[in-house]
Every structure is written in C-alpha cells, then in structure tokens.
C-alpha cells in the first residue's frame, strides 16, 4: 500500500517558485495498479519521483505499507521500490544477467541465488534465459529491453513498484503485447504499483484506479469505469475524450452482460423454432445447439416462417462466438465485423453458457450514466451473480 499525505513540491526557478505538486493526497491499496494521468507538466511524474526521492519533496509524507518513509535511508528505501523508467536505462556495460541481478547483488545475496533469480525473472518476462542471459542490452530490441527493465525492477521482489511511462517508447504493437504480459504477471504478483502515463487508453487498460492531475493538483481519483462514466469536470471530460463510452467497453467482460438464451436442437421442427423466437421476442433468429449444448448454427426467423421441416436441415453456420472473459470491445468489434446484434457465448469446451446482445451492452453502459441512480460495477456484479 502506498499512502501520500499532503505531498507538495515547489521548484525554485529564476522566475519565482513553481508549484509542481500541490498537497496531493491519495492512497493506492495493496496489489493495485494506480495510473497517474494528465498532460505534460501536470505534476504526475513529480509526484511519482518524490516517492523514491529522485525528486526531494518540499513537504508532506509518504507511507509505504503503513510505514512513514520520511526517516528511512534513501538508498535502502530505493532498494525496496522497483523502478522502471521510459528510457529503460539498462546498464550497457553489463550483461542482461548482471542488469537483472544488480539489486539483489547490492543487497548482498550470494551469487548462486541472484543468478537463479535472474534466470527465473527472464522466464517470467517471456525471454529465453539460454539466449538472453549473457547478451548485452544493445543486442536487444526496445521491447525486449523494457522487459528486462521490468525484470530488473522485480528482482528483489519489492512490494511496491514505480513505473514512469514504462511502455511509452515502445512501438504500438509491442506495447500492447507487453501491457498484456505485464497485466498477466501482475495478476500473480499483486504488487502495489504507481504508473505514470499520458495515454488514457493505456490507463484504462492497466489501471485499477486512475488519478487525473492538472496543474499540480489531483483533480479526480477513481476507478477507470467511474472516471469514464462520471468525469468530475470539463477538464477531465475532455481529457478522457468524446469516445469515453466506447473506452468503457474494454472494462466490461462478457460475463457481466451475458444473458440466458433459448435454443433449438437439430431435431426440432422449424415450427418449434418459430414459436420460441416469438416467445422470447428474438428479432431475427434462434441459436441451434448439438446434444452437448455446443452452438452449431442458427435458424433465421424468415426461414422458420416460410419453410416446413427440421431445424437441422435449414440452419446457417455461426459467424463468431465469444467467451465470458472477453471484453466488450472485442465483442463490439465482432458484431460490427459480422453485421450482427448478438453473439453466443461459450466456455472453454465450446459449451453454450449464454448470449451477449447489443441491447444488453447498451443497457449496461447506459445504467451507470444516470447520476440519480448510479450503479457501481460491484453492485452490478452482485446482481448478475445473484
């Protein structure tokens, strides 16, 4: 856990004092990623760098896991905080192994232990130790280098990590990959992370909480979903963008908007299919499943109305399906691609578990926009599981 208490930084410049961070108060719960977000010069980086004293604070306190860091020795404090910077900053005179093992070495681990740790971390960041341990940083691509940067920060297993635009210098394709890998890692490691970014999409993707800074002040500190649904002022609203509702798609999983679905089997007659379509109020079609409840196709309303026979003789193949853990952005994209308003949802064995519809998505996203009756993500989750 990181708690910041009235943290302030005033820079003395030739043109008079400049307040870079103005009485910042915030708390990052244990195991969460907090993204500090804002335009350049808003104080986000200053705030981050005051935590490991790369920038000395003017006033205020910082607590890590409940302990006031004010009296701590700077070098010791830093060795207990993982630090990743945009410029990566691998030491070019050291091999990858030496780079990763540097903090454990400084902490006095014996050579066998820190070498084993370096190997373990390389595997964790998805690089083959037999290839990379003895290489030098310049022999690696930018994306590989930043993976090592992350591994180095994790080496001594610090409870807290500070990341200053860690993926900012990596090309967009690799950035997505590294972000995904990092999130996967974080699910296991549960570090308390402060992460500076200027990219709202990155923030929405990575953050458990987002802190929006402007002019040295913390203007809003919320979960990504609440931030996108309820920006506190015009600045935050314009910063998160006109398409903020679309950005929320990424935050919602199919399981949260999944609905029960009625189906037919190949042996049912088209008459039964039509009945069920009418009953459920389906506009275009009904899903057909096999005996193991796996979706195999759909029967369209128009065919059911005009034709006699069995469903198994008059169905269309499925265009796509989704999984409960997919996010809605992917679902929306599939719907647009295949010109459809609903998709079946299956588990890992291909067994039908429900459906996701455009109306359901719209309804879910719309619900949290009504300020009078705000529905938090947690509440909605409860409703669904109930």
């Amino acid at each position, binding site marked *: 856990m990181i708690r910041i208490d009235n943290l302030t930084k005033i820079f003395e410049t030739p043109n008079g004092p400049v307040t870079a961070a103005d009485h910042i108060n915030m708390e990052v719960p244990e195991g969460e990623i907090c993204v500090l977000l804002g335009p350049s010069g808003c104080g986000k980086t200053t705030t981050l760098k005051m935590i*490991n004293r*790369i920038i000395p604070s003017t006033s205020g306190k910082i607590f890590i896991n409940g302990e006031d860091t004010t009296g701590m020795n700077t*070098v*010791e*404090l*830093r*060795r*207990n905080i993982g*630090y990743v*910077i945009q*410029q*990566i*900053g*691998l*030491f*070019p*005179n*050291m*091999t990858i192994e030496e780079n990763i093992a*540097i*903090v454990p070495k*400084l902490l006095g681990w014996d050579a066998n232990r820190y070498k084993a740790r370096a190997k373990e971390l390389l595997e964790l960041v998805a690089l083959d130790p037999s290839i990379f341990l003895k290489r*030098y*940083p*310049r022999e690696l691509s930018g994306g590989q280098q930043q993976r090592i940067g992350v591994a*180095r*920060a994790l080496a001594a297993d610090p409870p807290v990590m*500070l990341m200053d635009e860690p993926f900012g210098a990596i090309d967009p394709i690799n950035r997505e990959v590294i972000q995904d890998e990092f999130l996967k890692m974080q699910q296991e490691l549960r570090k308390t992370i402060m992460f500076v970014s200027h990219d709202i999409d990155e923030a929405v993707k990575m953050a458990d909480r987002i802190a929006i800074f402007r002019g040295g002040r913390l203007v809003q500190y919320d979960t990504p979903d609440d931030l996108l649904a309820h920006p506190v002022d015009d600045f935050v609203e314009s910063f998160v963008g006109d398409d903020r509702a679309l950005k929320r798609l990424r935050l919602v999983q199919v399981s949260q908007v999944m609905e029960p679905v009625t189906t037919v089997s190949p042996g049912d007659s088209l008459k039964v299919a039509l009945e069920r379509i009418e009953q459920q109020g389906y506009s275009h079609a009904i899903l057909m499943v096999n005996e193991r409840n796996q979706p195999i196709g759909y029967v369209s309303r128009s065919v059911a109305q005009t034709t006699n026979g069995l469903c198994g003789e008059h169905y269309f193949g499925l265009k796509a399906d989704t999984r409960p853990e997919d996010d809605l952005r992917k679902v929306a994209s599939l719907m647009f691609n295949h010109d459809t308003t609903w998709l079946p949802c299956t588990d890992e064995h291909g067994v039908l578990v429900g459906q996701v519809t455009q109306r359901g998505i719209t309804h879910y996203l719309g619900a949290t926009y009504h300020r009078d009756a705000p529905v938090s993500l947690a509440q909605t989750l409860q409703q669904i599981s109930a």
Partner: protein
Amino acid sequence: MEILDFLTGNLDLILKLTIEHISLVAVAVGLATITGVPIGIAITQNERVARVVLYLASIIITIPSIALFGIMIPLLSTIGHGIGYLPAVIAVLLYSQLPIIRNTYTAINNVNPALREAARGIGMNPVQRLRMVEIPLAIPVIMAGVRTAVVMNIGVMAIAAYIGAGGLGVLISRGITQSDPRQLVAGAIAVSILAVIADYALLWIQKRLTPKGISA
C-alpha cells in the same frame, strides 16, 4: 645510408635511450593518470570548480617546456634536484593533466542521464554508481585522454635531455651540438616511431579495458 649505418652501429645505445625515454614518460603519465582521473571525477560535482581547474590545466599546457624546465631549476635546486629525472617527470606530469582531467570530466558528465537516474532509482550509492556504471562507461574517453598525454609527452620528453634527464632527446641534443645530422635524424626518427607504437599499444589496452557491451 649514413643514418642507417649509424642506427645499426648504435643499436645498444638507442635501445638504452628508448627504454629510458619510455620509463620517464610511463612514470610521469602514470602518476598523471592516478591524479588526473580522480580530479576529473571530483570536479563533476561542481561546475564552477570544474571551470577553474580546467582553466588552470589549460594554462599549464601553454607554457613552453623549455621555460617550465627553467622555472623548476631554482625551485627544485633547494632539494638538490634542479636538473635531471625529477623536473622532467614533474613537467610531463603537469602537461598530462589537461587531456586526462578534461577527458575524464567530459566522459563522466556525458553518461546518459537516464542511466544515472536508473542507477539512483534502484538504490546505488554515489560510489557504487561511479564504480559500476559511470567509470566503466567513461573508460574509452578517459583512455583517449591518456593516449593524447602519452603521445604529446613523448615529444616533450625529448627536450628534457637538455636538463640531463636522458632519453632519446640525448641523440638530438648531441646531434645539434656536434653538428652531426646522423644522430639528430636518428633521434628524431626514434622518437616519432616510439610515439606511433605507444599510441597503438595504448589503443589496444583501451580496447581491452572497454566493457564488452559498449565496445564498437
């Protein structure tokens, strides 16, 4: 042809003088490295001090060597070493300061700020930063300074023969006083070849000392 005869006929003498010459320069530049590198590192901490130190070192290098020897004769006479080995070594030591201090200062100052921040951020103290990051990265440039000092001072040391320090300058000074072009030219050629060989030898050492990860 005369010169060739002289060279082959006096190999022993030339070898002895060359060794003398090398040892003079080696001792002087060695001492200069031991003093200049720490000074160069120290002055990275304060820009104003750095300017003063570099300015002084630049002034020293503009003093003609013959004048420097002249200045040292009365000073060092008080301890009985007005001429000979000591003033020669001191002169070369002083001349070597500028290239060595300046290159060290520049190299340490030019270490990528991101690396410095990373080193601080992961919890290296200032001594560890120097030892593990800054000095290894600065080695090629520091060594370039040492090479400059050595090559420059192989020439300066030839003049030290006039104050009785020995070395290949002996051949040159004798050549002049005895109007013997063979000795003069032989001395000059030997000094030049020595400078070239020393430069290559130091280049080789520089490459060996440069960390593998940054060598070109």
